[in-house]
């Protein structure tokens, strides 16, 4: 399985990092950590540019994060026309940041920068899958 079912619209499929999708289907949002030097990466990297190793471990992103910023998008690009409005957000977690949407059950008026978040997989129509933020 590649990235063909990731997000509302996927633009490419092949990558060494496709284990991410297997974990996501199993309910886990994962990041990578270099086995040699311990550097951690999100978005996940299959290779470590610091020590040039390609031996990486996957670890689950757990716990609470904090909303760094957001925007309610009224006009989406091609493929997202019927998807808008949607809310894009950046969450700060322990040592990493995650870009994703806020869950559709959160209304814009209830959002505050700094609010607590958790990240979890979300099933989308047409057998697609992504991850999203919920209130933490």
């Amino acid at each position, binding site marked *: 399985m590649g*990235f063909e079912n*990731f*997000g*509302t*619209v*996927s*633009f*490419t499929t092949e*990558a060494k*990092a496709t284990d991410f999708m297997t974990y996501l289907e199993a309910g886990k949002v994962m990041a990578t950590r270099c086995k040699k030097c311990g550097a951690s990466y*999100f*978005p996940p990297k299959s290779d470590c540019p610091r020590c040039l190793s390609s031996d990486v471990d996957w670890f689950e992103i757990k716990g609470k994060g904090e909303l*760094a*910023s*957001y*925007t*309610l*998008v*009224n*006009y*989406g*690009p*091609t*493929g*997202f026309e019927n*998807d*808008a409005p*949607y809310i*894009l*957000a*950046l969450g700060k977690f322990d040592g*990493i*940041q*995650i*870009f*994703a*949407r806020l869950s559709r059950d959160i209304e*814009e008026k209830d959002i*505050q*920068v*700094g609010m607590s978040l958790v990240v979890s997989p979300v099933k989308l129509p047409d057998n697609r899958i*992504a991850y999203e933020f919920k209130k933490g």
Partner: protein
Amino acid sequence: MADVAIVGAGQSVFSRSCGVSIRELSFEAFKEAMEGLDITSNDIDASIICSAPEYDKQRSPAGLISEYLELTPKPSFYVETVCSSSSTGLRVAWSLVKAGLHRVVAVIGFQKMSELSSREAAERMGRGGDIIWESPFGLTMPAGYAMYARAHMAEYGTTEEHLAKVRVKNSHYGATNPKATYRKELSLEDILNSEVITSPLKKFDCCANADGSSCVIVARGDVAKGITSTPIWIIGLGAATDTMTMAGRESLTGLRCAQEAGKQAYQMAGVKPQDIDVAEVHDCFTISEILAYEDLGFAKPGEGVGLIEEKQTYADGKMPVNVDGGLLSKGHPIGATGGSQIRTIVRQLRGEATEAQVKGAEIGLVHNIGGIGQYGNVTILRR
């Protein structure tokens, strides 16, 4: 250090739809840049062609434009950093001249965004982020900047009215710029009442796609003095790249690429922010201009809104910014924008600006950003 100069700078009229081909569009800027100089196409040793290729129908436009302007058989090649392409082109031109490889180099930026249907343009818009990790969520360029705006508001208390005041200023100057796409003054109410595109940014907080071209002719110092009586010296260059992903950004209250590029340019030029007499900054959105004030040291972090509140960035203020109308009024033909900003500063330093001339301007700055803050170029010029 000041031994590379700009001898000519021109741009086409920017418009929503130019109705001519990219070679003809490029000629308009080339003509304005070359007029009055004691050289012809034969004297140009190399040309650097700048655009964002995803908006081009023509594959490899460098050859096409160099043929049309009769720059063959001299070397011509393509440079791209999205919206910052022609500033990167200027940086490369400086290096080629400084290294002694060429004496005179033309930097030609263009974009004919009307060449694409609105559907094709919307498709390109969806691929501006990291296509594996962020574009599948529906990230667009306005949305990325909207997240910077929201973070700035939360951190510093910046308001939608502060943002709108940037557009009020830029529409004021755009109204007198014959090359601008939009020449209508907008009121605070017009802007605040326009429809929300991606909160908190509204229609009039955003610049528009446009067709246009720019051309900057760069020459070795000794050669420059024989070509024009008013060479403008390139005294500072800075460039930096930030992460493609939003997830990789250290902060959303300023653009790191601009802060880094600014530091380099000031250091190379041996000047401070308060030495700048007039600046062109990349106001692709109103928030971008506020970020630029702070990233360039015109104001401390969080205090940029004070400059617009007190009208200090108007032509008669302490730090005039975008007194040609900025991208917000001129429109934003991606590859041409940096060259257009350079042209404005060249005209200001020569005392030739027809819109709003800043009296006695000696040192000017150009801040040109590519993508959602991925690429930053800051250039400092002196008369």
